[in-house]
């Protein structure tokens, strides 16, 4: 088996290099990009944080999530850049005057012709408009039609579904409802005993997301990550440049650990920089 060797001319323009790598072509255009997902690039490409002054107009039209502002950059220039994420399967999707909601950690990049907003469902982002975006998933994405119920971890996103909601199993509802004894008498079998005492454990499937109506549900095999293995990372020590800032390694699910969301470039970042 021969391994193909790519150069700027043979790399695909806006296409997959292999199932785990996607190539974006920039010709004076801009792309929004999640931090740490660019693995290589050819050409002259500049990466600026969302807070960069010159991007004011772009951010006004296409980026509406202060919660994720610290996780995103804008790539502009001309050349080809390669995107990848934790050996997940990577694919591009086209939206045509549509809407799609996706797990925040799974979205890698999108064209500024789309507008990014926070979904009402926590941890998810909604893309609205026309354009292309790149998403990662553990295993290939499976498209399903509602009605169906989905494990929360396996959900990548959904398009056009009017009412995503929680679904809890009846047994779970009854246990949480507070009066298991009143109904426990008629079901003192193995199931009733379990419902009353919790002996036997939970199936782990008491809770799903339910989708009904017209639309598409996107599924992945599981959200669980393989353990991170050190690949030449600098040690977390005082005096080591770049050590310990924790970029990229945490999976980038949003700056939840740092408390309040903040636009980069605000005073708070300056304070942190100077160790105040």
């Amino acid at each position, binding site marked *: 088996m021969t391994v193909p060797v790519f150069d700027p001319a043979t790399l695909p323009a806006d296409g997959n290099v292999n199932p785990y790598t996607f190539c974006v072509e920039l010709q004076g255009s801009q792309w929004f990009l999640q931090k740490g997902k660019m693995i290589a690039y050819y050409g002259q490409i500049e990466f600026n944080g969302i807070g960069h002054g010159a991007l004011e107009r772009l951010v006004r039209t296409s980026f509406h999530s202060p919660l994720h502002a610290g996780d995103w950059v804008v790539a502009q220039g001309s050349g080809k850049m390669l995107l990848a994420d934790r050996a997940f399967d990577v694919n591009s999707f086209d939206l045509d005057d549509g809407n799609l909601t996706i797990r925040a950690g799974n979205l890698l990049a999108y064209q500024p012709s789309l507008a990014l907003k926070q979904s009402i469902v926590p941890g998810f982002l909604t893309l609205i408009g026309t354009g292309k975006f790149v998403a990662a998933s553990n295993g290939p994405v499976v498209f399903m039609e509602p009605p169906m119920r989905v494990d929360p971890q396996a959900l990548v996103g959904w398009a056009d579904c009017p009412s995503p909601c929680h679904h809890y199993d009846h047994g779970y509802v009854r246990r949480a409802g507070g009066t298991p004894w009143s109904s426990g008498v008629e079901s003192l079998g193995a199931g009733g005993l379990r419902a009353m005492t919790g002996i*036997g*454990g939970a*199936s782990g499937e008491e809770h799903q997301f339910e989708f009904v109506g017209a639309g598409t549900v996107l*599924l992945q095999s599981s*959200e669980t990550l393989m353990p991170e293995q050190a690949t030449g990372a600098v040690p977390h020590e005082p005096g080591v440049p770049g050590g310990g800032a924790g970029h990229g390694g945490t999976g980038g699910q949003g700056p939840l650990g740092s408390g309040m969301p903040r636009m980069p470039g605000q005073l708070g970042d300056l304070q942190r920089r100077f160790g105040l």
Partner: protein
Amino acid sequence: MPFREVNSKMVEATVRPGQTMYSQRGAMLGYRGEVSFTPNLQGGQGGLASMIGRRVANEATPLMTVEGDGTVLFGHGGHHVHVVQLAGETLYVEADRLLAFDGTLRQGTMFMGSQGGVMGMVRGQVTGQGLFTTTLQGHGAVAVMAHGGVFELQVTPQRPVHVDPQAYVAHRGDLRNKLSTALGWRDMVGRGSGEAFQLELSGSGTVYVQASEEKL
């Protein structure tokens, strides 16, 4: 019978009324229709005795019973999934590698020492199987998990197969396995090739090997 491979990490199972299926707890990704998932206290089939047997053998993986009428998607931990069809043979596999299996299969526990005595127990330690392993016998399908893709190696009496113990997933058929060691003085001084232990399988059957040396 009822498993359809959706992609390398996901299988779709069809559940019909009156049929039971067992799956690892928390491995359901999505479903259609009316399907119920009940935690299985015994960790599989049989009564209290088989439950205690599995607990003692440390082969009691949290299982749940899947019943109802519909289709269920299974996948777990981002691991690759491989479907094994059994037609009367026995599959030997670690319980925590079982993603889902037909209720028609007979589940049992086997003592590693029963194949090769003390050496069988050593083998169990090296492969990470422990002292016991789970057996599934009968007609039906099993979805087995592995880290990395799975490939099958045919074993015939003339051609035994050597497998890295860490890459071994499962085997089926009439196979005898033996741990072969190639320990030399280099291993003693910490300059070994890292391949000092190998699993030798002989007889006739199939070995399932994963493309990774990572345990589940």
